[in-house]
């Protein structure tokens, strides 16, 4: 620690205004505040400064993502060995998954932060730490076999088009991580759908999976109409099923949700209303029950695919979600409904969560606007009544 502080102090004079390397001030700033709690104090008047800043917030979200990441790594190994008809020890499985997942994480962070730093240098603003979470979310919502260059291209797209053009962190109208996934989803559909991309090594035609192993995700199976092959609720809840890296285990997601809720960072309102919206839609489907897909019970339906992951980590992104309390409930509810709607009724899209969240991201400001307007109207009415009475 001391050593770090000393090095930073040594560099500091050079990068301050007037120093030799003042161009790199924002870069230096980013590293310094990342390593140490900034010692800014308000200079005048009495303000309350929250003890937590953006960097700490982001760190906690990353912490909440860790269970999903670790389980995802283990599951990657487990699925891979399963596809070859082998088993291995806990550590062996984890190590294999670790080696598969780590490059994706590194690429996502290096590329994303690289773009952020370049923009910060050109525009002269400080490097924001919003990407700390996006960089972790992007690998978690990718299939394990996604080529690294695609991850890089998608990350560049997401950071530039999704964030920087709108003014950087805190200004984005869409969730950047989902934008990266949407980019791959539409640009390289063969790499993010089908039966082979979810298991490490299976998309390589030279490896041969054992008989009876399909590698299809529960949603893929449901999409093909093989409803009897869908794993039971507990298997999907624990999460040793094929799927994107981080979304398979509902337990890990729920641990993350608990961390977010206890620390007050994730909005419980959005999470609950999203799940409620999804459940409502499933019950409507159950009521009609026109085909087998519509008859799936809510518990099973909710534990398939990335619905829960999206509800906990994506829909709650504070920037692109609704800000008002009533708005949050409407926003979440509609996400849940639309996600189920797309999933069950549109055969082209196996999972609707990504599209549902991106769509509602777009409408979040509108929802807020009407909620605020309604509030103003109600209060005006009250004011009128009370003035009449007196």
């Amino acid at each position: 620690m001391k050593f770090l502080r000393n090095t930073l102090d040594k560099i500091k004079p050079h990068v301050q205004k007037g120093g030799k390397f003042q161009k790199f001030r924002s870069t230096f700033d980013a590293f310094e505040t990342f390593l140490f709690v900034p010692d800014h104090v308000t200079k005048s008047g009495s303000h309350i400064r929250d003890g937590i800043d953006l960097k700490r917030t982001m760190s906690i979200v990353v912490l909440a993502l860790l269970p999903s990441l670790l389980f995802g790594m283990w599951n990657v190994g487990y699925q891979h060995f399963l596809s070859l008809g082998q088993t291995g020890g806990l550590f062996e499985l984890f190590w294999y998954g670790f080696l598969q997942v780590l490059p994706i994480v590194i690429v996502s962070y290096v590329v994303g932060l690289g773009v952020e730093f370049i923009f910060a240098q050109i525009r002269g603003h400080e490097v924001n730490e919003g990407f700390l979470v996006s960089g972790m979310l992007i690998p978690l919502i990718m299939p394990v076999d996604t080529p690294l260059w695609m991850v890089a291209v998608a990350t560049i797209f997401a950071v530039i088009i999704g964030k920087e053009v709108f003014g950087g962190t805190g200004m984005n109208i869409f969730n950047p991580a989902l934008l990266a996934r949407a980019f791959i989803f539409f640009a390289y559909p063969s790499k993010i759908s089908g039966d082979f991309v979810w298991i490490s090594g299976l998309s390589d035609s030279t490896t041969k999976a054992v008989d009876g192993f399909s590698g299809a995700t529960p949603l893929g199976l449901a999409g093909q109409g093989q409803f009897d092959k869908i794993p039971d609720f507990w298997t999907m809840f624990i999460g040793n099923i094929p799927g994107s890296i981080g979304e398979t285990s509902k337990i890990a997601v729920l641990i993350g949700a608990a961390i977010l809720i206890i620390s007050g960072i994730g909005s419980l309102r959005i999470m609950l209303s999203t799940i409620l919206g999804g459940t409502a839609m499933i019950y409507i489907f159950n009521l009609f029950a026109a085909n087998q897909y519509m008859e799936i019970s809510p518990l099973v339906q909710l534990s398939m695919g990335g619905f829960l992951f999206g509800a906990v980590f994506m829909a709650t992104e504070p920037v692109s979600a609704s800000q008002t309390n009533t708005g949050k409930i409407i926003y979440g509810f509609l996400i849940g409904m639309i996600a189920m709607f797309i999933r069950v009724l549109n055969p082209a899209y196996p999972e609707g969560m990504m599209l549902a969240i991106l769509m509602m991201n777009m409408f979040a400001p509108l929802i807020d606007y009407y909620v605020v307007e309604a509030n103003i109207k109600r209060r005006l009415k009250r004011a009128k009544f009370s003035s009449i009475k007196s």
Partner: protein
Amino acid sequence: MAQIKNSKLLANPLNLQNPITVQVLGICSSLAVTVQMKPAFVMGLSVTLVTAFSNLIISALRNTIPNRIRIIVQLVVVAALVIIVDQALKAYVYDVWKQLSVFVGLIITNCILMGRLEAFAMGNKPIPSFIDGIGNGLGYSIILLTLAFIRELLGSGSIWGYKVMPPLVYQLGYENNGLMILPPMAVILIGLIIWAQRSWKKELIEK
């Protein structure tokens, strides 16, 4: 009205007064026909011809057109020209005509045309109007071709219908970008072009 030099009339729409990136007109067709370069080129050529000659004709008629029915007169002229172009394309480049399908006919509704007629041809002499029409048509074509170049290269790995991406690249794991073929990416690309243009020509940035 102050006389503008003819060379300015030709050059301005290419950059500072570009119909697509500065005036933001004609976006619809620029999203629809720019998947490949060949249709984009034919489309740009057609629009240039129609803009130029409709400008010329309307400008020649400008003093005799009653003000209240001028839009109808303009439409008649434009529609006639579009039909001529449509038939010519059908006769000589049938496959491209089929690709462009309805968009040749929709040149009639292209905002650039009506915009130039109303803003320029109705108040200027025939020759400058003709040049103005050509300039705007070319400005439109340039953006169309740029878009089509990027979209065809990254979306299909070819330029003007010829494969240019070497097979080796595909063996290394490269894939054509499917998003480039979809219209949403064209909107984003236009946005990027506008961004690039405005950081090049600072005076275009709105305050």
